[in-house]
């Protein structure tokens, strides 16, 4: 067996895993790897900041279901990855993060660009490796990918000292351990217990999250809903699991959920939680959440079952066989279903807001109505993120890339870049805000360099809108550090990056702007100016139950 360097082996391992793109930024401690990737079968995307690499790998993985890979050098290179790694951990995104480390004999000496990234990331990775011996690399690379994608996915860090990258050795790729990647089947007893609860219920609601899509259980889930005819509410990350236009889909639940969704959950007698985790943004005050309901909790991660809410039936493991086994008619729920559907009709959102300015919910609804089944929306964080969740109709969960758990501003643009490369069959639109876009604006240069056809819909209220809204409602209108009225001219800025752009202020110009978003080739930025006072409704105030949501606009 011929010798190769550790870095060359890492490249061969990435090729063997079928990696087609990696996202990164070179530097001293990762130089042997960057030397080895010349001529590799995968393509390296040079971002302009390591956080962009982590979010791009994150978006790549979310859109495709494949493991995203990012690379950075030691010290500041690795610390710049941290927010993206945390985001992947919170939202269970499969990623492998390869970082250069100072030479082994320098570890612990405060050497130039030495940072203990292994220690820093311990709380935010599914697992991590610090490679101490070049002969460990075959096992480490195999395990990194296996751990990242198996069970509940997550990020895995592989920290490789420079001398390990340079060391020659006879190294052989290890075969993929497919049997260890399959989640265990749930117990028959737990499924039977769940079946009995379904047979006994009168007012059931399905509360489904991102775990359904990640478990590749969309078809089984839709089969379960078709058979049982139970009304469905989704978490932010679950949107699209049941298509938005399915009559049984009531809407998103939680802090910015729709009235019909939250009220149905509050009144139900059986809550079937599938691939969700009773996150505080979904539940409001947990003790007041679905107060009369028994719970069936289905999740691949056994530690989520019963973590926050007692489950009368905990179904831990592969949810697909469980959903199949539970797909039977429930004739006793017809009256409840009819009441839920009437509520959905009664509280349907009204898109006829007064005024001539752009009404973002209506713009996003029109965008969703006109986009095809192969359109991916990558969101940033803030008001626009909630408007997208509420009003853009999703057909598949992997078409909605959003930083749900960590709420990381700056996610949207680099995640869109990753998505566009992993799903060249899809159109990718990044919906961002004027606060969020500035957090990774440098990735416009990446868009231009590789001519990645990401469209950016920039919703600009010249403020940190969600913070402004909370200061208005809950801090007596004492506005503190939310003004962004000195934003750059985003059209000129975009053009400076080589990306065409145009400006929209009036409602009447929205249809034509959407035409261009949907039809123009190549990257494009649409700068939409909106009123600073626009708020996201409904809103469940802090320390309130989801039944106590507020609406203060024309939908009141």
């Amino acid at each position, binding site marked *: 067996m011929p010798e190769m360097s550790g870095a060359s082996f890492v490249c061969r391992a990435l090729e063997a895993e079928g990696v087609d793109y990696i996202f990164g930024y070179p530097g001293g401690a990762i130089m042997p790897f960057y030397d080895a990737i010349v001529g590799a079968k995968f393509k390296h995307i040079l971002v302009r900041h390591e956080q962009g690499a982590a979010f791009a790998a994150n978006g790549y993985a979310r859109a495709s279901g494949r493991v995203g890979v990012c690379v950075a050098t030691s010290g500041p290179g690795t610390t710049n990855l941290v927010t993206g790694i945390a985001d992947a951990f919170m939202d269970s995104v499969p990623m492998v993060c390869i970082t250069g480390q100072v030479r082994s004999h320098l570890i612990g000496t405060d050497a130039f660009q030495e940072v203990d990234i*292994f*220690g820093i990331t*311990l*709380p935010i990775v*599914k*697992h*991590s*490796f*610090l490679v*101490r011996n070049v002969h460990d690399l075959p096992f480490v690379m195999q395990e990194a990918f296996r*751990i990242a994608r198996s069970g509940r996915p997550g990020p895995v860090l592989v920290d490789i000292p420079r001398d390990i990258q340079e060391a020659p050795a006879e190294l052989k790729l290890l075969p993929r351990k497919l049997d260890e990647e399959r989640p265990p089947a749930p117990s028959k007893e*737990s499924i039977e217990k769940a079946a009995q609860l379904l047979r006994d219920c009168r007012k059931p609601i399905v509360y489904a999250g991102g775990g359904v899509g990640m478990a590749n259980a969309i078809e089984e889930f839709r089969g379960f809903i078709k058979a049982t005819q139970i009304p469905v509410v989704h978490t932010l990350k679950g949107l699209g699991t049941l298509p938005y236009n399915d009559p049984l889909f009531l809407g998103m639940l939680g802090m910015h959920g729709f009235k019909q969704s939250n009220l149905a959950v509050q009144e139900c007698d059986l809550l079937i939680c599938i691939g969700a985790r009773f996150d*505080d943004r979904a*539940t*409001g*005050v*947990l*003790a007041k959440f679905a107060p009369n309901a028994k719970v069936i*909790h289905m999740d691949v*991660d*056994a*530690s989520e*079952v*019963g*973590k*926050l*809410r*007692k*489950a*009368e*039936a*905990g179904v*831990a493991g592969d949810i697909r066989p469980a959903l199949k086994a539970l797909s039977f008619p429930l004739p006793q729920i017809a009256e409840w279903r009819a009441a839920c559907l009437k509520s959905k009709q009664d509280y349907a959102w009204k898109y006829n807001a007064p005024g001539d300015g752009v009404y973002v919910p209506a713009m996003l609804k029109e965008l969703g109505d006109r986009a095809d089944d192969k359109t991916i929306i990558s969101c940033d964080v803030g008001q626009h993120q909630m408007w997208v969740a509420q009003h853009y109709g999703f057909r598949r969960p992997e078409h909605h890339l959003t930083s749900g758990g960590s709420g990381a501003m700056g996610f949207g643009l680099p995640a869109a870049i990753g998505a566009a490369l992993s799903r060249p069959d899809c159109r990718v639109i990044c919906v961002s805000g004027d606060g969020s876009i500035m957090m990774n604006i440098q990735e416009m240069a990446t868009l231009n360099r590789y001519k990645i056809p990401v469209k950016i819909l920039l919703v600009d209220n010249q403020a940190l809108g969600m913070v402004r809204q909370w200061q208005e409602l809950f801090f007596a209108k004492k506005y503190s550090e939310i003004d962004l009225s000195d934003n750059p001219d985003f059209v000129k800025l975009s053009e400076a990056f080589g990306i065409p752009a145009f400006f929209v202020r009036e409602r009447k110009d929205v249809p034509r702007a959407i035409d261009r978003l949907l039809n123009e080739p190549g990257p494009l930025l649409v700068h939409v100016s909106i009123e600073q006072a626009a708020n996201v409704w409904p809103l469940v105030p*802090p*320390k309130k139950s989801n039944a106590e949501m507020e609406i203060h606009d024309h939908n009141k």
Partner: protein
Amino acid sequence: MSSTLYVRLKKAEGSLVRLLGQIGRRGYDVLGVRAELSADRKAFDVIVEFEPFMPVPPAVQEARPADVLPRLVEKLVEVEKVELRGPATKAGAPAPKSKAAAGKAGDMHFMDNE
């Protein structure tokens, strides 16, 4: 009231720190630790005495149930076995018997988050 957790852990880079971090981060106060390297030097037998953080009144949040912890610890890649014993016993308690002895899913309590 404190409880005792027995963990068999592969000896790997940072595995002990990872275990203790997981316990602390998930809302449990570590009161004592004893770790011994196995005879083959491939694993640690760890005994952790812990108790849930007690939120300061007037917070409505309750302390986390002790029996949630084993399943959270079991997720760590290096954990081979985990077992919860009720009230804490002093060091010298028996080593863990089986990873499957971790707390049973669906047997928990309400928590509050605001």
